[in-house]
């Protein structure tokens, strides 16, 4: 029996020592938000936190977890930073198919928790291990910046219309996401 601390809950599992944490989470415990993409630490889809640090669960033997706190995408929203990251992901509309995004959010949260205002270079360092096959990188960068600055980052979509009197107002009109609630 191996005892794990996952998202603040203690879970006992009866699995081989060398079984990667990914499969313990997905197939034994049933936390399937953590994804399988490559199994060789090349894509980042399986990223979880171990005491707050981003790790690739597909190559992490469960026996190496020990008493460290495991946080998965299902639990990351419990932290203030995680919650902000999730919200920014929605605001910027980062997600396409979404399969990589658990991992992206875990990596971004670990980054922002340690470095609240990352530079572009620091974003690259933290995020380059996460592949997005749908190519959402531009928006991932924007979303991280939104969390870092607390400023709503304008999504880049620019309908090619003539500029209006106040550029700021025009930008606001064009760029702020229209909330569905406001559409009635």
């Amino acid at each position, binding site marked *: 029996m191996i005892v794990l601390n996952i998202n603040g809950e203690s879970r006992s599992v009866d699995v081989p020592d060398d079984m990667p944490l990914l499969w313990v989470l997905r197939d034994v415990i049933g936390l399937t938000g953590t994804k*399988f993409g490559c199994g060789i630490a090349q894509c980042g889809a399986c990223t979880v936190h171990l005491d707050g640090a981003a790790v690739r669960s597909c190559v992490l033997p469960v026996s190496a977890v020990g008493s460290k706190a495991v946080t998965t995408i299902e639990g990351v929203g419990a932290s203030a930073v995680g919650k902000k990251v999730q919200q920014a992901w929605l605001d910027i509309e980062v997600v*396409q198919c979404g399969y990589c995004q658990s991992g992206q959010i875990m990596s971004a949260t670990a980054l922002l928790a340690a470095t609240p205002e990352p530079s572009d270079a620091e974003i690259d360092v933290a995020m380059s291990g996460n592949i997005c096959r749908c190519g959402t990188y531009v928006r991932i960068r924007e979303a991280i910046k939104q969390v870092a600055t607390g400023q709503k980052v304008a999504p880049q979509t620019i309908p090619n219309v003539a500029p209006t009197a106040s550029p700021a107002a025009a930008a606001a009109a064009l760029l702020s996401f229209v909330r569905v609630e406001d559409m009635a």
Partner: protein
Amino acid sequence: MNARFGDPLGEGRPDNPSRREALKLGGLVVAFLWLGGGAKVLGRAVAQGPVAAGDPAFAPNAFIRVGADGSVHLVMPSIEMGQGAYTGQATLLAEEMDLGLDQIVVEHAPANRKLYANPLLGEQATGGSTTIRYCWTTMRQAGAAARTLLVNAAAAKWKVDPAQCTVARGVIRHEASGRTVGYGEVANAAAQLPVPEKVQEKDPSAFALIGKPLRRVDTAGKVDGSLQFGIDLRVPDMKIATVKACPTFGGKLVAVDDSRARQVPGFVAVLKIADAVAVVGEHFWAAKQAMEALDITWDHGPNAHYSTEQLFKDLAEASKNGTPIPGKAVGNVDGVKGKALEATYQLPLLAHATLEPQNAIVHVRPDGCDIWTGTQVPARCVDVAAKLTGLKPETIVVHNQYMGGGFGRRLFEDPVEQAVAFARQVSYPLKVVWTREEDIAHDRFRPAYYDRIAATLGDDGKPLAWTHRITSGSVLATFAPGAMAKNGMDSDAIECAADLPYEFPNVKVEWVRHDPPDGLHLGWWRGVGPVHNVFVIESFIDELAHAANKDPLAYRRDLLQKNPRALAVLNLAAEKAGWGKGSLPARVGRGVAVAAPFGSYLCVIVEAEVSPQGEVKLRRAVAAVDCGVAVNPNTVEAQIQGGLIFGWTTALYNGITLKNGTVQQHNFNDYRMMRINETPALEVHLVDSKETPGGIGETGTVMAFPALFNAVFAATGVRLRSYPIDRAALVQGAEALKAVVTQASDHGQAQEGKV
């Protein structure tokens, strides 16, 4: 409404649409047409098949379910694989029903061709960048019909003229009296009313949702891990298997020694089919460990010595000596006098590498079968399961799921077919999950192409004659044989080549079919025919501009004078990119490409830098897009961004190669993906357009290749006619290779190593 609509067996047959029309629709579209089918919009379709939302009070058509509690469920005929289809479809319905997007619950459609066939495809399928193109009418009609009935029911209740009622967020209001009633309260009454013959869609000036960058409907569960993809599902009593198919395509399984595998804790069983073996475990890890412990003997079959060298040798040979099928002929290209240019392009096989590996859960019972999977073709999954199990199709239920990427891979049901073949050997639900290695080795590969292209330039440098001979295998011929033209033409092979955005006086476009050996399966890949042809054409146009000593953008501008939409995106991109302005450092270049794939118009400009050792770095890119009305501009932008990165990834890194009949790539270490730190600054500019929506999901990918290659040419003077980019060909002289490498070089200078 679409001309083919409601007449699935008539005009929809591929032989009927005129050749020009077929070409406009694109190969993938034509591929499906022969299948017939077509959804019912007006007229109650509920009784014809299972509905997804329980027992709604009001279900005027296959897409809309209004409950007496006011809940609105929309059943999505086109599937969601990241391209934003659910949001787009829901927006069109909600617009006409005067609902907020937040009031809607979207549902996966069950397998049912009658109800959910895409009329452009004539099949229950998602692909070819068709969703918005067909939904533009279909969904709006469906929404408008529902609204009409609901309003009529309210008006009848109040005994007022329906025209005096307005609707906001699903609440009907009689302006004069101020009375209001919710959709739910009149749902039962609306269900009793006759479906109107004809409904009027909203005037675009009244659009409240269409054209706004609304939030997607599928993302909330994708940021907190709660949304389940096919690979995430767990059904009671299920066991998990992983598979290994014969690594040599066309090979067979001979024998399996599982004595070591049986020692693996969690091992359950070994299952065999003709060309593959599955290991079942209590969890994936056990299955995978046990798979590695199997000693498998394969019969490598007839392709044991086949290689990509052979493939291209055969294509070149076919191009030379095969029988060309005419695709387009204007004037006479022979005997035209002028400056003649000719080039050969060679494009590799490609894998899809969706981030979610192939998977399916299948439970075969004596009386039926359940399939849980994410598929672009649910009805085809039923077909194969019925064929393999002998069960009646009505007893086979496909529970479609969100997909971790499709890109055309999930237009092929082979993983489901394989899973059924294994699952029918056991009594429990079997979840089959492919490893990444299996996913890459046993993909349905984008065909390899061999193109010979030639032009003769007049004194003004413009082409007088244009000759393009394409040689490739045919996806269409195996995917939908009935869709091949009578003369043997595969419309996908020449899509965007036979219908150039430019007008030349003499044009000859033809195709030579040369299929790879049996067992090497070809498939649709994001961008289908156009992603190949636009690369070749836009690269060659660049070659011509260079030969004519003209600026490549100005050259195109000249040639596009009769094509205002193409011209407009060209000019917009040029302006935004600052084309021709400022001077670029050494070994930095800009490339441009313009095309009109899938009914949209795009121009992309890429600025790239090439290091002395040939490393290519994208610095900046600008895309100008006219896709007609952008139903959700935010989705359009996302698709262009993602599509470009998808294309650049391949341009930079990808190509499937074969040795001894076996795929040489395995995982992301050798089937490499672009990463965030390689992503350039990327702008997307939309043209404000009132035209009917064009496709968008594949267009960015189509444009990515030529824009980048033309930039690389501008940076280095080296014309590459194949991908992935041969970086050895871009080396700046032998000295560069003798320099200690530390930098990718920001300014094209070799940098000495630092300690």
